[in-house]
């Protein structure tokens, strides 16, 4: 291969997967270099994803086949605007988590095990967002799930271990259901490609079983109510950088697959009833998750239940997109939720981690006056909270506005009501923390000093959630490339 071929933008997808993978291997072989491998990966991946995004904006979707073999033997990679946006948000959030982890794990024994797993998880995520067929999606999903389970167990406490085992069992069950669906799909269509409009000729009824199985498996893995039971313990008990990655990125992996399947191959077969059914689960998730967050006694548990609620918003994309009026606003709105939630939730988990690092606990009741100790972290929590509540100017607001507009134009106003109630509940649970944090008390308990990098990476991510609210024209232009509604 000549240098020109290697630097050809069309080969970028392969490099985007290989770089974190190579860093993972390096971190295993030379454990001391783990932190630096992470930084190097973060910079290189960000640059490559930016180049890929530029390529997609200018020339449209990118396709490549690794090694020259065509599927089903070879591995095909595909990237459109959606993939680029997911890769971009992954690069941003993972980059910040990497910096944060250097402070968090400095001098800790867990550091050795963290870096290889973390780089591996990143590679799996990148591969997932670039996969072009249903089987490869399964493989990447499995790799993602396994590395996530190992990371949850990292802290070594009994609670973490229990949560990890439960997470593992749920993940395997979900994958298995999904895989069965894939098998049925192959039996019916004889292909596993994602962009197959060829299969449409076959009878709709025969698609019901594969669709239902695949959707059920993915919904379990995405923790949509009532399949969310495993998420709060897993996300709340993991080390802070891992919690952030799980909530911000990993749950988006399975959601992304469902999104791809729903809006490409299964689109012609989906009846409005199943879309409304998913919508009802989503609404229940929003209300239930928010109520649980209101009751949670620990800060990280509060944040984890907030994730359960926010996943509900993601799934509203299905009922809202099922009606033609109002154009692709729901599509953009759902993806905007994915992006802004990634930034905001990572920021919130990272600042909760800083609070826990400082105080040694995260009981909300005992966090009075923390604003005097960790002003930057509290501010990061607040800024990210703005996006989680959906107030302007933030990515969360843009997402909510797009949904609301679509719901009103399409005459499905009830989803709007759910979103407004969800916003009010979110305000209530976010401000629970401030009501303690702002108390002026002379006895702010002594605590460990927090490395500055941990506070400022959280603030950086929170700012990104706000900036997303001001960058909507650029982001929607990218998301528009390859949008299934064209």
């Amino acid at each position, binding site marked *: 291969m000549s240098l020109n071929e290697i630097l050809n933008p069309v080969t970028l997808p392969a490099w985007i997967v290989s770089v974190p993978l190579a860093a993972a291997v390096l971190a295993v072989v030379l454990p001391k270099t783990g932190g630096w491998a992470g930084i190097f990966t973060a910079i290189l991946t960000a640059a490559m994803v930016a180049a890929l995004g530029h390529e997609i904006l200018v020339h449209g979707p990118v396709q490549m086949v690794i090694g020259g073999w065509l599927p089903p033997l070879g591995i095909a990679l595909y990237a459109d605007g959606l993939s680029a946006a997911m890769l971009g948000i992954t690069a941003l959030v993972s980059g910040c988590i990497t910096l944060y982890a250097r402070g968090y794990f400095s001098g800790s024994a867990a550091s050795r095990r963290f870096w290889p797993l973390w780089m591996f998880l990143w590679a799996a995520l990148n591969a997932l967002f670039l996969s072009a067929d249903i089987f490869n999606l399964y493989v990447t999903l499995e790799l993602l799930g396994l590395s996530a389970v190992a990371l949850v167990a990292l802290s070594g406490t009994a609670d973490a271990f229990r949560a990890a085992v439960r997470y593992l069992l749920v993940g395997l069950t979900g994958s298995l259901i999904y895989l069965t669906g894939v098998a049925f799909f192959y039996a019916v269509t004889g292909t596993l490609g994602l962009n197959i409009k060829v299969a449409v000729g076959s009878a709709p009824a025969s698609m019901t079983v594969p669709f239902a199985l695949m959707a059920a498996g993915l919904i379990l893995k995405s923790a949509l109510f009532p399949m969310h039971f495993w998420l709060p313990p897993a996300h709340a008990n993991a080390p802070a950088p891992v919690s952030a990655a799980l909530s911000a990125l990993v749950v988006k992996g399975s959601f992304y697959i469902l999104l791809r399947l729903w809006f490409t191959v299964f689109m012609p077969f989906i009846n409005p009833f199943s879309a409304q059914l998913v919508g009802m689960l989503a609404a229940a998730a929003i209300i239930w998750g928010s109520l649980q967050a209101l009751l949670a006694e620990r800060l990280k548990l509060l944040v984890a239940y907030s994730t359960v609620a926010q996943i509900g918003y993601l799934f509203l994309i299905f009922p809202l997109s099922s009606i033609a009026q109002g154009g692709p606003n729901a599509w953009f709105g759902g993806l905007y939720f994915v992006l802004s939630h990634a930034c905001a939730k990572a920021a919130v988990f990272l600042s909760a981690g800083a609070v826990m690092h400082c105080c040694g606990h995260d009981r909300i009741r005992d966090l009075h006056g923390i604003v005097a100790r960790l*002003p930057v972290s509290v501010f990061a929590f607040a800024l990210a909270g703005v996006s989680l509540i959906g*107030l*302007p100017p933030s990515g969360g607001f843009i997402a909510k506005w797009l949904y609301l507009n679509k719901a009103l*134009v399409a005459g499905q106003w009830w989803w709007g009501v759910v979103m407004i109630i969800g*916003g009010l509940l979110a*305000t209530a649970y976010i401000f629970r923390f401030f*009501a303690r944090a*702002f*108390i002026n008390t002379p006895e702010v308990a002594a605590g460990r000093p927090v490395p500055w990098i941990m506070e400022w990476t959280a603030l950086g991510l929170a700012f990104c959630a706000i900036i997303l609210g001001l960058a909507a*024209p650029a982001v929607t232009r990218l998301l528009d490339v390859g949008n299934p509604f064209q």
Partner: protein
Amino acid sequence: MKFDDWLPLLILFTSLLPGIVIFLLPEERTRWRTALNLGGAGLKLVLTGIMIWGVRHAHVYETRLPMLPEIELVLNADAMSMMMTALSGVLWFVTTLYAIAYLETSSQSRSRFFGFFSLCVSSTIGIALAGNLITFLMFYEMLTLTTYPLVVHRGTPESLHAGRTYIAYTIAGGAAFLIGVAWLKALVGSVAFTEGGMLAPYVDLFPSQLRLIFLLMICGLGVKAALVPLHGWLPQAMVAPAPVSALLHAVAVVKAGAFGIVRVVYDVYGIEFSAELGLLQPLAAAAAFTIVYGSVRALFQDELKKRLAFSTVSQVSYIALGAAILGPIATIGGIVHLVHQGLMKITLFFCAGNFAETLGVHHVSRMHGIGRRMPWTMAAFTVGALGMIGVPPLAGFVSKWYLGAGAMAAGKPWVIAVLIASSLLNAAYFLPILYRGWFQEPAEPGFGQPPAGKLETHWMLLGPPLLTALLALLAGLLANAPFSPLEWARLITAREYHP
């Protein structure tokens, strides 16, 4: 793009950027903080001056930034927005002076305080300059959030409780407003502020939906404007430090709500179309009820700041009342009261802060003879109080005169009864304070006379109320001079009725 296109954004940044930098300053950098605050405030005044001159001469200053494919963030200087901008620019400057004297020597977390203070003012400027409902909504919510840390600044259980009430009311109000805006956007596709209104073409299409949207938006705005029964947060929020209360009651939060109501009535629905839909009558009734109710409640408050807070509930509804009466004279009265109430109420809160800070007097019942100890402060208080009652030639008289005359012209004599009742009640709760302060014998030692050879309090605490009291006096005395608030309100009204 020309300089004119960036001016509205620039004026927003004169407080936004200092605010952000102040957050990063260490506590002990008092001088830097002061320089940033006053520099920003001064620059804002200069830019506002340029823009007022330009708007008078039909210049167009407009910043448009794309926000979503079919939605733009619009900052636009029309006659109405310049009035709010000028008011908040001037009052920010004096309040900053006051806040520096009030907080810089004693309090902690000053960088946080002044940072949010600047962000709060930036939100107000954004609200003033917003050229469509979405931009308005954006800054309206930003105002909610940036005010919270100011309300809870002291960190006492009382202030945190007030903060919680404040957030509960304003976020719920914001949600109602958001639904209204989103619904309107889905229904008619446009949400731009247009002089004379923009909904007239839709009169026959969906009148009942438009009525419901109006209700939602007025409820959302009415929370901040403290329309009864949405006013519950305001009397509690007075636990905030005095400069915050002053800003909150005169120009920031409460005024944002009132200004929003004016915008919705005139520039979204249009006053004539609002009347046609039958929306003005209920709004007038709500405003009238609030005016009387607030005054009655004020009568029974012994805590000075609480009495002033209920007085705000009452006085701000004059603006809504003016907007709810069809006819240019009442419009002038309502719009000019935006400025007049701000000048008078900020004076009163400054004075209340001075009494509390200098002598530790928080209650009306302890104000015997306070005028001998602090004559200048008491004089400023007197000007503010008499203005509120509506004694000529003070600013408050001008507002009430136009409101009354407008009500007669519109054939609504009952409004006159409300105005008279309210003025009597104003007198009933303000005059006893004046009598007690000036004419009664001091009950406490040390109230007898001002300290010999020095000012009655810090000059930066004394200057702001004297200046705003003077402005309130001049606004009434020179009401017909060019660039007076009244003359500007006439300009706005002319453009609203003959766009």
